[in-house]
């Protein structure tokens, strides 16, 4: 079943088209990677899905219903968002920051209910951040902050999660851990849609990859098909080395500019 689908969606800024008739289907329970060169429209696609940017053409469906038909609060419960280089502007205590993810489930003045507290603790625990719960955001390292911010997005418990470059600015160990956390989330039935610059992460952790080039879909499908040599050559101007990891998983490394 498709949790989020794009049917010939176009969008842009100030009359300049960034997305041209993009069609893509993002399944529940899978990690879908959005890859493409800089300026290919990855972030714009996420912004359009969130309703931050109106589509100038085509239809976006969230859980089967056209996006504009969703009331704001219901949409917030259905779709969570982790932005690029996410950070907290005030040094909140981590647990309180994660609790912001429960906002769609609460009315204006209601205190955090038991269900909210459980969801916050669970999200922290899943992100290995329970020990950071009482620390202030400015006391944490970049990798720890990234885990807490992911916990914030997970705490919403939305069936669709959009993450924009969550692995950027993280060291290799944190990158791998973060991708594993996204896989865990998908295993719980969530449609995880993640933009990635790192092709090897995309090849290794995504069930499905959509390659964007100049605002159009250049390729889509399982990683080995979507990231085939000719696509990499045409879209990214690189050739790749493919090898097998110690666990038998195929690894792809962008090797040489073509």
């Amino acid at each position, binding site marked *: 079943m498709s949790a989020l689908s794009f049917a010939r969606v176009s969008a842009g800024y100030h009359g300049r088209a960034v997305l041209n008739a993009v069609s893509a289907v993002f399944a529940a329970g899978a990690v879908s990677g959005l890859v493409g060169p800089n300026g290919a429209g990855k972030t714009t696609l996420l*912004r359009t899905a*969130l*309703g*931050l940017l109106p589509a100038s053409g085509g239809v976006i469906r969230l859980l089967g219903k056209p996006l504009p038909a969703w009331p*704001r*609060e219901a*949409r*917030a*419960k259905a*779709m*969570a*968002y*982790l*932005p690029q280089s*996410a*950070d*907290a*502007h*005030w*040094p*909140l*205590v981590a*647990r*309180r*920051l994660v609790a*912001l*993810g429960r*906002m*769609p489930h609460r009315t*204006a*003045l*209601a*205190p*955090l209910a*038991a269900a909210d*507290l459980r969801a916050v*603790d669970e999200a922290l625990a899943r992100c290995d951040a*329970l*020990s950071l*719960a*009482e620390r*202030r955001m*400015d*006391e944490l390292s970049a990798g720890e902050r990234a885990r807490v*911010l992911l916990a*914030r997005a997970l705490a*919403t418990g939305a069936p669709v999660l*959009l993450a924009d470059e969550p692995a950027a600015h993280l060291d290799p160990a944190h990158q791998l851990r973060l991708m594993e956390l996204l896989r865990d989330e998908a295993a719980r039935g969530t449609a995880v849609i993640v933009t990635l610059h790192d092709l090897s992460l995309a090849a290794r952790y995504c069930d499905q990859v959509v390659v964007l080039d100049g605002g159009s879909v250049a390729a889509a499908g399982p990683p080995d098909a979507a990231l085939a040599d000719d696509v990499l050559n045409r879209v990214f101007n690189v050739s790749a080395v493919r090898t097998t990891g110690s666990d038998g998983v195929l690894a792809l490394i962008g090797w040489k500019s073509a």
Partner: protein
Amino acid sequence: MSAPNATGTRAKRPLRLTALRLFGASPVNGEGKQNSRSRFFSPPLAGEVAREPFASAAEGAFVTLALLLLALAFGCISFFIGPANMAPRDLIAGLFSGHGASGIIAQQIRLPRAALALIVGGALGASGAALQGLFRNPLAEPGVTGVTSCAGLGAVIALYFGLAAVHPAFLPAFAILGALASAGVLYILSRRGAGVMALVLAGVAIASLATAVTALVLSVAPNPYAMSEMVLWMMGSLKDRTLADLLFAAPLVVAGIAFLASAARGLDALTLGEEVAHSLGVNVAGVRMRIVFGVALATGAATAAAGAVSFVGLVVPHLLRPFYGYEPARLILPSALGGAVLVAAADIAIRLIAPDGQLLLGVLTAMLGAPFFIWLILKLRREP
């Protein structure tokens, strides 16, 4: 934001526990409290690490109560201090009876001054907290962003054209219009993606322009007496305010703070940036509108009543923020209380330092606030 504070928070735990038990039932800061109580009064869940959830909830409640008591205390002291040496007993009797010299002094002079100090401070403190939350920067403040100057300009225009004499409501109305104009410009700039430094600099430009136009209005003032009146008024003072001033300012300030409080939840979400706030179901444009309008109402009415009193909105939220877990929503009402305490205290201080009235309220707050502002900039520059 400094490390010593964090250790301080830990050291104070026994105090907070006591405070929690003392005030556990008072719903000062709703959400944290509920949680703290349930954690303290029920056994911890199996396998869970024992810890204090939402650390500063009880501390916040304690500080809020202390601020409330301080505001009331300073309000009372302000009421009892003045050039006419009257016994407190006579003043209280006069306040309720309204008869004789004590009645006139209590009702027409002391009460407006004491109450206006609290109301003006409340307006400025809450406005500062809300603007800082909206711009996500501790340097935002009605004075720094030019809102106060524009409110002053509006009021001076109302005075100059004699509108304030036609109906007393024109003065606050024009001050609010002036505040709305400058807050509106900041709002539009922030919508266009102006960074925080750009906004602060735009505020400086707006303030300079408003000051220049105010100077123009003053220099073509009909007579020197009117000019000196306007100049003194612009410097910020609570001297010689009437009951009418109080009755105009109070409801407008309360309405303004109510607008700000209604947007509080959105400010919390804005901690994560505007796009995440949108994804959390917050109407970001609506939050901006309510804050701009609330700040214009509260600051405009306060400026109409007291002239330009700057830096209160800068200092108070900054000092209180650590007690409320740096959460913008929880900070608004305590900042109103803190502002009331600060302005009432400053107004008492100037009467004790210079009983003849040479020292004006706005002058004192600027003399204390400007160095604080510079210190804050240096501190922020040091942080990564």
